Structures are given as structure tokens and as C-alpha cells.
């Protein structure tokens, strides 16, 4: 880097401008990553927290399965008997509105993303405060987001339509959401009342239904037969995220924006180093005439590229982290180290690719042009 470092210092104005562009893109990269993970958390952190490897939906539901799928009791019984299936549990999912009818925040409207499960199943929550779910009594376990509204253990919520009285029995002290709504857990019968909007006794048919079967499968288990028998389809846990409202659209939008950002950054870096290399043509010819191998000049140029990109990305990432920390709580935003490392790595990597294309023209410079007559 004998020459590269001295060029950086000598032309610091030009490099600072280019570095500033890369740094700003890095800031945007961090903010977008934060927003993407924040949106993902708000969308599917409830599903992510469930101990399962797959989920089986009614095969007729091909999209938005959580609102369209219904499975029957014989389905989960069939699943739990199938080979390669460690566990199969009914899982209910619905969105409901309720009002605080007893408690400090009486009259407050509450949106609930209700997960229904057997209280003794591994799907059931383990509350930090209060009690676990019980088989009868319409208890719910709430999470951080609803507690933040002022709802406390012992409060009574009354659901719209079904008029079901829900007693808050426990609190999981984490922000767990589904479809941008705080998750609450309840037993399956209470979930059915909420889901069908029915007060009083449930009809016999409804009493044997759930949204899906939460599965824990052995690695490589072949479940084609049981899928056929039950007319259900098992999706891997990751794939179930796409079945939640808006998640696929949100994440593909974010991915598109990020993709464009990286492409722009690679182009900007490539364009800058193209101009820079063209400007240096006479010096490159001189270096070659002095006997510098092309490899020496390329190494020098690439070291310069990497130094600029790493420096600018580090500055931009630090600024992005500072900005991002200020946004937590005000927007769906969360900082995840792997996501930010990926974003910074891609910025540096793709920028280097852009620059490699640019500095490749070093190989084509003819040392003869260093001599006067042919200039």
C-alpha cells in the first residue's frame, strides 16, 4: 500500500466524498435491517417462539393459512400416531377485540392475537408472573405489549361478539407479537369461543376444531402418507411465517429496497474507481515502465478500495447504530447483530466487486505511453 495510502492522503477530498456516500448507504443499510427485523418481530415473533418444527394446515388453504385453515380432532390424532412425528398438538389462532371491563384501565379497547392450545402442551406459555393456563375458567396469559396498555393480572377483559369473560392469569414479560398485535395465550375452548364469536355452549362440531396442527418432526421424517390421510400439508416453521398476515409482502419489500441499495452502492463505488483509474492512467503507465508488475499495481489499488470501503462502512454502521438505538420503541425496529453484519458485509463485498470491474482496466494500460513521443 505504498502508493495507495499516499494517494488516499493526497486526494483526501475526493475519497472523503466517495466515503461519505458509502457511509450514508451503510447508515441506511443499518436502519433498513433494523426496520426489517423490527417488522419481522412484530409480524411473527409469536410463531417463532412456539416450540415446533412444522405446522400442518388444511390443504385447501394455500395462502393466509392462519385465517383460512381449519383442522379436526382426528387430524391431530392421526398426526400424533404417524411415524417420525414426535409431537402433534392442536393450535388455534385468531384475532379478537376486547374491552377491559374490570381493572385499572376499565373501558380500554384491546386488540388480541389469540393463540389457543392445550394448557398441558409444550406450546403453552411459561409466565414470568401469575399462573399458567388452566383447563377451564377462560384464563388468558398476556405478553408485554398488552401489559404496556396498563392491563394487569386479575383484570377481566370481555370479548366483543362472544361476550366471553377473559381473566388475565399470567404475564409473559416479553414483546411477542403476531401480525403487529400482542399475543395472548388461552385454552382451546376459550379460543374457539373467541374464534367463532359464539357465547354460551359451543356446538359439538366446533368443539373438535383448531386452526392447525403444531408438529415436532424427526429430521427427515416422511409424512406424505399422513398428509394424504388427513388432507393437510405440513409447512416448515420458517414457511409458516409467510402464512401470517402481511409478513411475506413486508419482508419482500424490505429485501427489494435493500437489494437496490446494494446495487446502487456497487455502482457508485465502481463509477468512482473507474474515473479514478482513468485519471491515474499516466501514473499507471509510469509504474509499469519503472518495472512494476501489473499484480503489484492491482494489489495496491484493491488495498485502497478495501481500505476506503471498510473505513466508510464502519463509520456509517456506527452512525446507523446510534440512530437506530434512538428509534427502538418508537417504530417497529430491532437491532440484530447478524443482520447488521450481513448488511455491512454485503456493502463491502459488492462495493469491492464494483471496484474490481473498474480497476481491471489497469491491466490494459501500456507502459509505452510513459515515453514522450507516443503521448
Amino acid at each position, binding site marked *: 500500500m*505504498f502508493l495507495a495510502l*499516499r494517494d488516499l492522503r*493526497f486526494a483526501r477530498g475526493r475519497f472523503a466524498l466517495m466515503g461519505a456516500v458509502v457511509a450514508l448507504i451503510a447508515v441506511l443499510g443499518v436502519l433498513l435491517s433494523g426496520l426489517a427485523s423490527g417488522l419481522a418481530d412484530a409480524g411473527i415473533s409469536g410463531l417463532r417462539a412456539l416450540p415446533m418444527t412444522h405446522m400442518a394446515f388444511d390443504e385447501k388453504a394455500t395462502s393466509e393459512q392462519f385465517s383460512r385453515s381449519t383442522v379436526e380432532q382426528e387430524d391431530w390424532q392421526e398426526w400424533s400416531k404417524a411415524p417420525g412425528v414426535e409431537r402433534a398438538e392442536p393450535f388455534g389462532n385468531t384475532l379478537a377485540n376486547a374491552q377491559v371491563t374490570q381493572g385499572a384501565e376499565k373501558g380500554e379497547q384491546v386488540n388480541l392475537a389469540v393463540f389457543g392450545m392445550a394448557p398441558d402442551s409444550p406450546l403453552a406459555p411459561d409466565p414470568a408472573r401469575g399462573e399458567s393456563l388452566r383447563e377451564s375458567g377462560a384464563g388468558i396469559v398476556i405478553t408485554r405489549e398488552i401489559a404496556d396498555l396498563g392491563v394487569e393480572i386479575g383484570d377481566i377483559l370481555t370479548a366483543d361478539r362472544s361476550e366471553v369473560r377473559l381473566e388475565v392469569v399470567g404475564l409473559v414479560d416479553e414483546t411477542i407479537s403476531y401480525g403487529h398485535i400482542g399475543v395472548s395465550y388461552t385454552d382451546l375452548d376459550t379460543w374457539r369461543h373467541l374464534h367463532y364469536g359464539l357465547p354460551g355452549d359451543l356446538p359439538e362440531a366446533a368443539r373438535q376444531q383448531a386452526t392447525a396442527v403444531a408438529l415436532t418432526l424427526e429430521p427427515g421424517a416422511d409424512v406424505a402418507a399422513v398428509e394424504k390421510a388427513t388432507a393437510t400439508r405440513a409447512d416448515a416453521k420458517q414457511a409458516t411465517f409467510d402464512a401470517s398476515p402481511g409478513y411475506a409482502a413486508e419482508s419482500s419489500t424490505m429485501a427489494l429496497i435493500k437489494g437496490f441499495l446494494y446495487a446502487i452502492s456497487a455502482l457508485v463505488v465502481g463509477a468512482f474507481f473507474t474515473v479514478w483509474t482513468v485519471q491515474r492512467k499516466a501514473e499507471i503507465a*509510469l509504474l509499469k515502465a*519503472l518495472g512494476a508488475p501489473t499484480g503489484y499495481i492491482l494489489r495496491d489499488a484493491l488495498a485502497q478500495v478495501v481500505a476506503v470501503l471498510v473505513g466508510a462502512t464502519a463509520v456509517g454502521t456506527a452512525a446507523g447504530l446510534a440512530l437506530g438505538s434512538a428509534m427502538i420503541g418508537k417504530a417497529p425496529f430491532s437491532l440484530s447483530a447478524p443482520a447488521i453484519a450481513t448488511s455491512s458485509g454485503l456493502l463491502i463485498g459488492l462495493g469491492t466487486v464494483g471496484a474490481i470491474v473498474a480497476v481491471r482496466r489497469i491491466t490494459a494500460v501500456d507502459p509505452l505511453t510513459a*515515453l514522450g*513521443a507516443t503521448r
Partner: protein
Amino acid sequence: MTTPATDHRVASDAAGSGGLRLLDITLTLGDGDTAVTALDDVGLTVAAGEFVAVVGPSGSGKSSLLAVAGGLLKPTSGTVHIAGAELTALSDKERTAARRRHIGFVFQQSNLLASLTVREQLLLPLHIDGRLDAAARTRADELIDAVGLSHRAGSRPHQLSGGERQRAGLARALMTSPAVLLVDEPTSALDRVRSAEAVQLIAEQTHERGTATVMVTHDTAIMDAADRVYEMVDGRLT
């Protein structure tokens, strides 16, 4: 036979010295109807410590002569010998290495690198060759002193006058103790007095350091400092 101290690769060459030998060089540029004979059966022997000037109008083939002698162009026919080794028989890679180790170039308007100080300009050739050590730094200081630039060692090219740049370029060319020094129009950016000084300095350094020096120029006023003068017309040396 004794070999000059500056030349460590001298072999028993027909010329009896380490210097530069061009034998029957012909260089044809382009092909077909547009082919131009830039060098026409040129022979030239320059002994170590000898300063040869080649004068001629532009387009006479002077620069081609330097390019061939310096291994930048391969002649169509004929051979180039430097310090006893046949430059024209080497691969591209080996020729690049030979340029780096045995040939010093002084370019028109000196051709310094904008971001380097005078001292760094001198260190660069040795950095390229992976030999940048304490001895190299000492040699750089000694050469800067020899060309009278001690007070300018930390200056960059844009802070130097034309004459100073030319002297820095000469010092850089001498850094690797080259067997051959090739000088391209050294006075094109200088006035008459400074031209005479610059050429005088090249002559001094040639005699002192034992390089085989070839200078091409169209400036007939500066030939007096040379040991021998050739004229180049239409690719022929006379």
C-alpha cells in the same frame, strides 16, 4: 578485466563491458499498407560509464530506440543486450523484472507521481522490487544530496520547479544502480540555462556511477556534454 562496481551482472560480452548493446535492430510498427519502419537496422554499443546522445527531429525513431533499449517494445528483428544478458530473449515477466533492476528511465518532464514526496519517489522503485530497507533509505538520501535536492526531500511534485522535478526524476532512475540509463527529452520543459545544468548533471552521474547512458533529444544545444553523439534520421542511426 575488471568490472565496474555498479554492475553486478557483467558477463564476458563481446563489447567487453556491462553496458548496452543493440545489434541489427529493425522495428516495424503496424502492418500491411500502414506499416512504418521506425528503426532500420540500428546498431549501437554504449560502454559502462559512457554518455551517448541521439539527436533527431520528432518522428525520426528516437523514442522507439529508447523503447526497444528499455524493453518496452520488442524489436521485429535484432537483439538487445544489457549487462551481458539478452533482453530480447526474455519473457514479458522477466523483461519487466529487468526494467525494474537494471534499467533506469528518465522521462520527459520527469513524470513524477503526484502524491509522493521527492524522497518517496526514490524509494518507490525499491518498494516495487521488495527491497525497501535501511540501506535503500540511506541511498535515497545520498542521491537526493547528489542531485542537490536535500532541501526539497519532503516536497511533492507540484511544489517543485521544472528543473527540480527533472533532477528528482534522475535521482529516482539511479536508485536501483541500473546498468543502463535511458533519458527521454530531459530538457523539454526547461529553459536554456537549466537545460545545460540538467544535462551536465546526467553526464556527471553517468561517469561517476558507470551507467551506460543513452539520451534522446531534439535539442542540439545540449549535445556538448555527451561523449558521443549520433544522429537519427528516418529510423537510421548515423
